[in-house]
């Protein structure tokens, strides 16, 4: 471990340790350490932040996210796709794996979404034939929070969260 990594670990340990003292939301600020460094960056015009991963079956991943999920492409060629929501609320991307970029193992990452109309989403995705490995259901009986999970053709876990819509919405 480098000296820099040791410093990171020390900072992080102080935060994890502070959790023991935080018993409720209102005393969060009392015990949460000040950030050692502020966030000073302005994110750029083409996209802001995105995670990249690598897939063996590039075509299938494209079909799943673009045609089944309905995402837009921000960048696209025959071995790379950067996808986004129509409102550019998020970005993620994947590469066709090759000898230099091995495929990300199935289950190594999750792409998570928090939906505001979860019941509509469930019906829509089921109507498109998306197979769910865990159906979109309340976390526990009576819970307003819903969760479900499906898997992309290359094994990327897609976790869908949502709050039950309020009456009249």
């Amino acid at each position, binding site marked *: 471990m480098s000296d*820099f*990594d040791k*410093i*990171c670990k020390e*900072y*992080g*340990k*102080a*935060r*994890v340790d502070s*959790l023991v003292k935080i018993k409720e939301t209102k005393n969060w600020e009392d015990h*949460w350490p000040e*950030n050692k*460094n502020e*966030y*000073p*960056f*302005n994110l*750029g*015009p083409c*996209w*802001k*932040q995105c*995670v*990249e991963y*690598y897939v063996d*079956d*590039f075509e*299938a991943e*494209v*079909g*799943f996210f*673009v*045609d*089944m*999920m*309905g995402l*837009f*492409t921000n960048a*696209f*060629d*025959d071995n790379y796709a950067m996808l986004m*929501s*129509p409102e550019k609320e*998020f970005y*993620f991307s994947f590469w066709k794996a090759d000898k230099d970029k091995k495929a*990300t*193992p199935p289950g*190594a*990452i999750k*792409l*998570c979404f*928090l*939906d*505001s109309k979860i019941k509509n989403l469930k019906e*829509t995705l089921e109507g498109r*034939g998306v*197979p769910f490995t865990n159906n979109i259901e309340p976390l526990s009986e009576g819970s307003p929070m819903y969760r479900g999970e499906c*898997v992309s*053709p290359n094994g990327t876990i897609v976790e869908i969260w949502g709050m039950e819509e309020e009456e009249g919405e």
Partner: protein
Amino acid sequence: MRDFNNVCKTLGDERLNRLKDVESEDDWSQVKTKRKHSFDFPLHDARKQWVEYHVSDFEAELGFYTDILGLSAQSLSQDYAVLHNESHEFYIGFWRACEEKPETPTGAISICFFFEDIYSGVDKLKRRGVGFTSDVKPFPDENGTCRLAKLKTPNGHSIEIWGFEDTPSE
């Protein structure tokens, strides 16, 4: 599941085939936006979308993102963190790896940022002690107008900082 994956593959194949015939902005626009189904899922303001991965040294990853990059925690427990910037433009999550959730292999993902001013951003990170595995370079070659710098998180995951040659005017 296999049938569904085959449908996805067919759809992806069709899109890539259309890409070969792109000759104009209009063609490109069709490839980018015309699709079988629309994205008609409103995201919740609380978080919208995030990625999760798994690390063996949870504390070091946490310290890196919060105290070196300056992100804030939206969720934090002994084993799980979701972090974001002040404007809530993105969210990044990671878990403490365990038997059921093994460590995400290094090289499996890259976490990328596009800075308005890559030179200033990289300089600030260097002053915070960040060591870059690749300093700011033109991309894709020496004539490129994009700029790219690379570093790694304490758990060895790749971070890419992107930007343009021209910095914004003050």
